[in-house]
């Protein structure tokens, strides 16, 4: 029987592939049959991701600053000349912080929006130029967060950027439907990654236990989010667009 969740024959672009959710998504997509193009800031860590992937020679790696749009454009052109049209984009690169209102400087706001929102939108624009035009179309995923849906003290700036992705993805889904490009967001709860481990709430047992208690199924693993990505990238999700898939161990169920 044909597996509707297979990524065989698909080429998937993954940002933030040097660590955390992005890295696991790249690994999981390759195991599901995809050829992956990895983007990240750190060449050494990207190579580590590549080493964890089956048949590393099949895949491409680019160490790049996603805010350097000209370089990203050239890189994408070069990648497409090697691997052909693209079938999926996972915008997993992002940063997080915990900051109260009084510490939200205009510079800080700008930095967060450029990193978490602008870069993903600009890359999506470039991706569309090279997206596969066949019947199965293409799939774009933005990694949002439950913080884009509900609040937590000190999470204003992170919530602003993650909520922006959820809101923007709906309009993009409508705009790109005629081109057969699906656009969705995934909103994870707290997943154990280098990013969450460096957060203020992970620095002591009391805070960490509080965060754990907010997730009825416990904290997430990068694989939990990577599997959601595989679904949205696969033909199993051919009729799914403009939605926000919540993968949070029950965080928002209350």
């Amino acid at each position, binding site marked *: 029987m044909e597996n509707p969740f297979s990524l065989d024959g698909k080429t998937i672009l993954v940002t933030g592939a040097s660590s955390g959710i992005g890295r696991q998504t790249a690994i999981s997509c390759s195991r599901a049959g995809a050829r992956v193009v990895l983007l990240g800031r750190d060449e050494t860590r990207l190579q580590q991701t590549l080493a964890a992937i089956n048949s590393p020679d099949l895949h491409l790696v680019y160490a790049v600053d996603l805010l350097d749009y000209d370089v990203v454009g050239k890189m994408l052109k070069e990648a497409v000349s090697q691997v052909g049209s693209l079938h999926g984009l996972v915008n997993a690169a992002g940063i997080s912080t*915990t900051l*109260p209102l009084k*510490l939200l400087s205009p510079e800080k706001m700008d930095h967060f929006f450029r990193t978490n929102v602008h870069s993903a939108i600009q890359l999506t624009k470039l991706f569309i130029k090279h997206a596969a035009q066949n019947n199965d179309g293409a799939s774009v995923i933005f990694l949002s967060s439950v913080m884009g849906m509900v609040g937590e003290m*000190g999470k204003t700036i992170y919530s602003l950027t993650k909520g922006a992705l959820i809101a923007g993805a709906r309009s993009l889904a409508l705009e790109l439907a005629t081109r057969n490009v699906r656009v969705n967001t995934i909103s994870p709860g707290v997943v154990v990654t280098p990013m969450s481990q*460096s957060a*203020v709430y992970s*620095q002591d047992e*009391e805070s960490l236990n509080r965060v754990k208690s907010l997730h009825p199924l416990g904290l997430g693993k990068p694989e939990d989010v990577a599997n959601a990505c595989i679904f949205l990238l696969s033909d199993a999700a051919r009729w799914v667009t403009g939605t926000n898939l919540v993968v949070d161990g029950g965080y928002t169920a209350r």
Partner: protein
Amino acid sequence: METNFLEQLTELLEMETTVKPADKFREYENWDSLAYLSLISFVDEEYGIVIPRDEFGKMNTVQDIIDYIKNNS
């Protein structure tokens, strides 16, 4: 660092008079969970130091915070 820190802490905690090293900060009228979060975030942003909650629990005075930052810079 110290004078600057005292001024920034005064503003951060919205104190009417400048905080002093000997102050027991938990006795400030407006000390609450937001003040705690603000202080922890400020130290992280400004000095790149995350103070673990159990370490913070041992601190009583503003000087204790200054000493922690100095010892961990």
